[in-house]
């Protein structure tokens, strides 16, 4: 879970990005910290006497009042009417130069001049004037404030004392962290209703349940879309992190929450990258990229550090609370973790590549090697890692290959692929319930198929992108052992021939398939399923005449890949980390362009 330092960093970043006033402008909604100050006052049971804006209600942003402010932006009073607090708000740094330029001096003077004869002030015994600004300050700015505060009398009217306070960004952050971090009110008022409902769902729904997938996730995505509406600025980006923090405070007291939390961050990260693709602002892109590392990857890393021992425990993934279909459920969990660990390692590598100092690089390398250890021990301990059930599991297998291959561990890849092959063959041969890999990538269909024994459609399990990927990787990267394995996979598993040439007599044929993504693949996959665009290539047979004449399987595969690459050249998209694109594929069950394993 998020540690206090990260919370402080994100919170101060968010507060810093806000303006003085929240209001609706022609260029879009502008969010101010006046709203946050009001919520802080309300958290202290203070009642507003004067607001600088008309509240906007459920859908619209607050509108500024067209009246003289007299320096005071917000005025609140205690329930018993004895304590009056007047806020002077500034979204500028408190410096010597700004003291007069941005009317710090004038506004404080005017705000301090309270008319104590008003009926509302009759019981007031203390007047506190707070200068709150969501930026930094310098010494001279602070001195100016002190000088001015000391120049005022300590009493106001006949009975009230006058006190001055100054809340800079640090103070503001600290107060918000103490009083508002778990409250949806921290977000602008227009999101309150929608976001409160999401907080309630997070408190109630079990991760992965029907409600989670069908209610919470769509609502969360809709909320993200609303926050990140064009034009997206820094405030909106930071607001997403704040929303996540608030959600965390509402976490369900259930072990499933930890993975659920990761999933919520994933949707947020993808929405942010989708927004980044639409902006030309380098600063904004940098903020989004930074949040990928500091929010998603760091949370993922912490999650796996916490659970490393469990993942390395033999058969740990088969020990959940599911009594039925344990072989399917454990495969689901194994591939969930394999994917996330793969993305974590890949993401850290990308961060490491961007670093210049040797010491920093070394530190990242150490973190990466920690991820490798967890991944390897999980695979050793859980045979479900060798049981792909959906075609989209090619993503996790790809990641595994990529990571092991980068580490020069091709022998481990051969071992994993070989285990996968043997298990897939046993599945097809022995007529177990789970015989095929579902190319529709639907757990629901798969489980129903196991429960009823009826295939959900006539094409169920008849095509495989996953096996084509394994064949290509075997031939291109795994040396003679890989080539041999590819021959077994193709002959036994695809063609259904026993080593002696006899047929296994599988009830169905499985066709290999490849895919060419559309040009806008990266944009499409960040916001949804991208497999329905582009061109599908079916491989009817590598040996057109039932046997390889004057050639071999590996030569045919190489020929196929070469022809496909010439016909459909692939260029990796820029601007979004590759690890984020793989995550997008995983979250949306979308295929990964073959170009990624062909370019390695």
């Amino acid at each position: 879970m998020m540690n206090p330092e990260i919370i402080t960093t994100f919170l101060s970043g968010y507060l810093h990005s806000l303006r003085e006033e929240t209001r609706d402008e022609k260029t879009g909604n502008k969010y101010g910290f006046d709203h946050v100050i009001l919520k802080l006052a309300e958290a202290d049971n203070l009642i507003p006497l004067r607001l600088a804006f008309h509240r906007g209600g459920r859908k619209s942003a607050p509108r500024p009042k067209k009246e003289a402010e007299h320096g005071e932006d917000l005025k609140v009073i205690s329930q018993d009417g004895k304590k009056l607090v007047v806020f002077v708000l500034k979204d500028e740094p408190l410096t010597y130069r700004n003291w007069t330029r941005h009317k710090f001096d004038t506004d404080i003077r005017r705000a301090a001049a309270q008319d104590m004869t008003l009926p509302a002030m009759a019981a007031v015994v203390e007047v506190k004037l707070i200068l709150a600004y969501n930026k930094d300050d310098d010494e001279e700015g602070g001195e100016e404030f002190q000088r001015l505060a000391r120049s005022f009398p300590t009493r106001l009217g006949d009975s009230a004392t006058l006190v001055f306070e100054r809340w800079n960004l640090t103070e503001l952050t600290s107060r918000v962290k103490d009083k508002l971090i778990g409250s949806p009110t921290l977000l602008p008022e227009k999101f309150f209703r929608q976001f409160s409902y999401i907080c309630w769902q997070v408190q109630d729904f079990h991760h992965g349940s029907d409600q989670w997938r069908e209610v919470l996730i769509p609502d969360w995505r809709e909320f993200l879309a609303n926050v990140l509406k064009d034009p997206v600025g820094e405030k909106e980006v930071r607001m997403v992190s704040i929303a996540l923090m608030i959600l965390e405070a509402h976490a369900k007291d259930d072990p499933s929450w930890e993975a659920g939390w990761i999933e919520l961050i994933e949707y947020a990260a993808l929405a942010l990258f989708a927004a980044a693709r639409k902006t030309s602002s380098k600063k904004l892109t940098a903020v989004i990229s930074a949040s990928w590392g500091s929010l998603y990857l760091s949370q993922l890393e912490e999650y796996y550090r916490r659970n490393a021992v469990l993942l390395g425990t033999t058969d740990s993934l088969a020990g959940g609370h599911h009594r039925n279909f344990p072989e399917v459920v454990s495969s689901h969990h194994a591939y969930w973790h394999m994917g996330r660990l793969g993305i974590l390692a890949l993401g850290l590598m990308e961060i490491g590549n961007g670093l210049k100092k040797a010491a920093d690089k070394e530190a990242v390398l150490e973190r990466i090697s920690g991820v490798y250890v967890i991944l390897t021990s999980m695979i050793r301990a859980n045979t479900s890692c060798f049981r792909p059930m959906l075609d989209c599991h090619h993503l996790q297998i790809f990641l595994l290959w990529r990571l092991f291959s980068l580490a020069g561990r091709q022998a481990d890849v051969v071992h994993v692929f070989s285990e996968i092959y043997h298990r897939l063959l046993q599945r097809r041969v022995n007529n177990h319930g789970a015989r095929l890999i579902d190319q529709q990538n639907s757990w629901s269909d798969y489980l129903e198929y196991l429960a009823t024994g009826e295939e959900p459609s006539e094409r169920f399990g008849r095509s495989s992108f996953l096996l084509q990927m394994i064949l290509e990787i075997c031939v291109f990267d795994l040396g003679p052992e890989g080539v041999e394995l590819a021959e077994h996979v193709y002959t036994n598993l695809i063609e259904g021939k026993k080593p002696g040439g006899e047929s296994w007599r599988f009830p169905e044929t499985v066709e290999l398939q490849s895919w060419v993504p559309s040009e806008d693949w990266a944009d499409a996959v960040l916001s949804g399923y991208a497999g329905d665009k582009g061109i599908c290539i079916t491989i009817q047979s590598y040996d057109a005449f039932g046997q390889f004449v004057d050639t071999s399987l590996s030569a045919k595969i190489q020929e196929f890949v070469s022809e496909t690459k010439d016909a459909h050249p692939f260029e990796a998209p820029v601007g979004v980390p590759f690890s984020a694109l793989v995550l997008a594929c995983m979250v949306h069950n979308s295929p990964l362009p073959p170009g990624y394993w062909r370019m390695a």
Partner: protein
Amino acid sequence: MEWIHDHLAEGIDCGMKGWLVAFLLQYDERCRSLGIAPLGDRILELLPTGVNESWIWGQLQQFLIRLLAESKDRFRELFFQIAVRDRNALGRQLGPDGAMAHLLIEIKQSGGDSMVEDALASDEQSVRQLGITLFGLMRLDSLSTESMDKWTDNRTAMLIFQVQRDPSFDSNHTRFLFAISPRIENGHDELKSLFSDEMVYQMTNLPESCKGFISRRMEENPENVSETVKAALGRAERYLEKLTPCWRSAINSMDVAGYRHASNVLSARRSREMTRHSEASSPLMGMCRKSYLLYGGDGWRIYSGYGLGGINGTKQYSNSMEIPKFAFIDPEGDDIRRFNAIMMIRQLEREEQLREPAVHDES
């Protein structure tokens, strides 16, 4: 009789097989007296027959019981040959619900231990498997040291691989392994390791019955438990202990889409299958009228047109059994394990065949 002899080779259908056995039971003695070859000599040609043909197996049982009374050697020879022909069916028929359960009692009473030991020492894989099955069904606890001392390490390993090959749903295999554990102590490290791994597998596959069995032995008399078994028990306990915190942990608590719906469908399907099976196994149940009570959990009564019947209380029946873990969590892995065991048995058999002449030469 001669006509039957002539036509046996052409093959006979299932229905005729039972009549043939019944026929030979009555007339084999007369055949001998008339100089016609008895049908009993050709009984193997009737096999394999269907597992569900309980009448045929029942007839065969009578024949075998008579043979056992006449000559143990001839019985053993035929019995082992039947195992070679139809090992799986024979194993099932000897079980508590099988048609040959009575034969098992007869074997036990006529010195079943030696029959088991002979079977385990056989060169035939199916006969060795029969030995393991008989060991379990006869609820034996031990084997004679003399017989086990004759086994080579390879032969002992073959028995362990046979245990691997045929899954058990109770503690029979563990009991068998426990019985051969004294032999393991004299074996090579590789054999010890194979044995230990298998013990751990059995105890973690069926913790309640298999680990329970070994734990009870430990409680009763730890001195009778070999070091290898103790070490295996420790490993199994550690495995299960480490799994406890994984239960409902953050790594495996997420739900899978469609799981609940599929579970409901599966439960309904199992319930239908159970009803069908109970009706098939009990003709009486099929004749009974079924009522599906809507309300009222405390009792029920019938109005039949002749007045209101008395109040009957509702009763709940439930049954539970331990499910072998690995067949469910890793079905393909379990298949691969069995496949590897078959390969290993073949390899060890070849090695034994190659070794045996050398032993004879030396002798």
